[in-house]
């Protein structure tokens, strides 16, 4: 069954130079600044990789390629330097640093983090293999014997070998195929081993690595890099959540059903008005109850906080969120955030298009509540396979009416041809058919990965550029 429902009359277009022009300019400037930050981070990331190699070059590394053994050793050293640089960069990306979050968003930072995992591992493995080969040639030993000799005779090398095993374990368990076989909890604990891997890799760099020997200036650069990463982790991963949690003292007030397999979790706390205006940006929540406390959940607020209460809407997506359905009133909650670019700060155009599916609808509600737009310049498209999974439908319809947004509710099974994000009966249509000023709008998409990709493909085909597209990833 399919319904296409227009709950609000689409008003006639306002003149080109209305109140929207000023908004457009502000948004364009904001977008430019954000792109500049993005580019600056990109440059910084590449520069740090180059710097790692330059450290070695500055120590005369380029002269090592005159014969086999030093050349192998040099390749090994460079691989280790770049690999370690990547690992530290990954830690920075996962540190939820405000600057990085504002530039590319935490979800995208985590996507980059995930992409770097395998290259970093390969480089660190290459570091070991090439050094064993290079040192082996110099000592006249096969690489295995050389490894044994290094383990036995050199300081801190046994730690380095343990470190490489840990890195291997972390990356392998993070591969999507492997990750699905284990519960999230297992993967999470293994992932914490990253810190152990980084720490056990540290001593041999300074006690065996000639580049970072006492008296080398390179030693100071490397120490400074590590200290920077450690400081970022302490500041943003430990201090920020603690501070926010103690400030707001969140407690579960009640859990109420909100459609098929979803609940609204209502929380009470102090100074909640400070959390208002986060739009669709997400917070990271931990429910401090036995069995739940170490599992963190990224949810955005499904309504702006009011009267000492705030609300999140949770759908049963996995074991982690399933247990949330039964969370008891009175449970204390730790919170950090907000993170991500899925909010007002990412706007670049005066028009607004919100497209959500399933539980992905809930962050859109928070955006709709606060977003800047002139009446008639916002369109909300809700997508569900059954009417029961149009979460928060009534609240969203009411908000659309109040703020002058156009609402479409598209219910039905997915199309097999044409635009796959649409219900089967509308598959011949596209975004442009629903939104008149699409090219002058920001598009926010939230929902299952494949579906969201389909929406974005449609948007790109309709002429939208990358900066206009905003997507919340729920799959990291």
């Amino acid at each position, binding site marked *: 069954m399919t319904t296409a429902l227009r709950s609000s009359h689409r008003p006639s277009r306002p003149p080109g130079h209305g109140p929207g022009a000023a908004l457009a300019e502000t948004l364009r400037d904001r977008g430019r600044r954000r792109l500049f930050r993005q*580019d600056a981070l990109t440059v910084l990331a590449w520069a740090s990789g180059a710097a790692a190699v330059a450290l070695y070059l*500055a120590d005369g590394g380029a002269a090592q390629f005159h014969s086999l053994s030093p050349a192998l050793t040099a390749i090994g050293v460079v691989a280790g330097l770049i690999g370690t640089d990547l690992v530290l960069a990954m830690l920075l990306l996962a540190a939820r640093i405000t600057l990085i979050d504002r530039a590319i968003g935490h979800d995208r930072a985590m996507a980059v983090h995930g992409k770097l995992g395998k290259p970093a591992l390969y480089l660190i493995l290459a570091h070991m293999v090439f050094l064993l080969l290079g040192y082996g040639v110099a*000592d006249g030993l096969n690489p295995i014997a050389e490894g044994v*000799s290094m383990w036995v005779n050199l300081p801190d090398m046994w730690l380095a070998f343990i470190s490489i095993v840990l890195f291997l374990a972390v990356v392998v368990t993070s591969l999507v195929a492997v990750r699905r076989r284990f519960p999230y909890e297992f993967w999470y604990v293994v992932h914490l081993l990253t810190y152990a891997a980084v720490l056990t890799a540290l001593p041999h760099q300074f006690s*065996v690595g000639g580049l970072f020997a006492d008296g080398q200036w390179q030693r100071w650069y490397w120490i400074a890099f590590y200290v920077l990463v450690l400081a970022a982790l302490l500041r943003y991963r430990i201090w920020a959540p603690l501070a926010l949690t103690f400030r707001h003292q969140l407690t579960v007030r009640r859990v109420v059903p909100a459609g098929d397999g979803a609940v609204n979790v209502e929380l009470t706390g102090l100074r909640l008005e400070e959390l208002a205006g986060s739009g669709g940006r997400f917070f990271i929540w931990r429910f401090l109850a036995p069995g739940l406390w170490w599992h963190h959940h990224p949810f955005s607020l499904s309504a702006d906080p009011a009267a000492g209460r705030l609300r999140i809407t949770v759908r049963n997506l996995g074991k982690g969120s399933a247990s949330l359905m039964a969370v008891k009133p009175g449970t204390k909650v730790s919170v950090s955030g907000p993170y991500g670019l899925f909010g007002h700060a990412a706007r670049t155009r005066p028009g607004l298009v919100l497209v959500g599916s399933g539980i992905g609808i809930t962050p859109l509600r928070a955006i709709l509540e606060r977003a800047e737009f002139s009446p008639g310049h916002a369109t909300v498209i809700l997508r569900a396979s059954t009417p029961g999974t149009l979460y928060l439908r009534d609240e969203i319809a009411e908000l659309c009416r109040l703020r002058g947004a156009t609402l479409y509710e598209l219910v039905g099974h997915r199309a097999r041809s044409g635009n796959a994000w649409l219900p089967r009966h509308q598959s011949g249509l596209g975004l442009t058919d629903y939104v008149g000023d699409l090219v002058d709008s920001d598009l926010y998409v939230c929902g299952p990965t494949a579906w969201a990709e389909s929406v974005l493909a449609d948007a790109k085909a309709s002429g939208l550029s990358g900066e206009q597209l905003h997507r919340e990833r729920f799959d990291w």
Partner: protein
Amino acid sequence: MRARAAAAAALASVGILAAGWQAGTHVVEAASVTTGAAGTTGASGTTGASGASGTGASGSGPGTSGSTSGSAGSSSGSQGSASSGALKNGTFTGAAEETRFGEVQVQIVVAGGKVTDVKALHLTDAERRSAMISATAAPILRSEVLQAQSANVDTVSGATVTSGAYLTSLQAALDAARA
């Protein structure tokens, strides 16, 4: 915009690499000498721990302040042994050597036939450090030098004088008085 980021990143990376390379070419000469010196150190490390302290101590002892590798440019005499020595992995500790600053002991780390690290042991003692610092040559005022009148000294040390210049020297006056 992405093109801008790519161009800037490429430019920055190439610049940093070029700077590193450039800095490296200056180090290469000194590095080869360091390797040479390290080679002798390590070689004696394999033959006997007592030998390791000799070269090690002169290579990394107190007060040499890192510039030693630069000035070692011509100490090619020890370089030949670098290639010949098949050094075993491990840390080698030289015999403790009594110096004017107390006991100095040198430890080297050998990995893949190369000395990758040299550590001076027994040098962290604050007392010994301060003794070392006070023994170093420091700028002083002329008035602080032990003073003497030319009539009071027994002999005069100076840059070598030719026999001709000797006639007008203070030493000549002293010698004449004692003839």
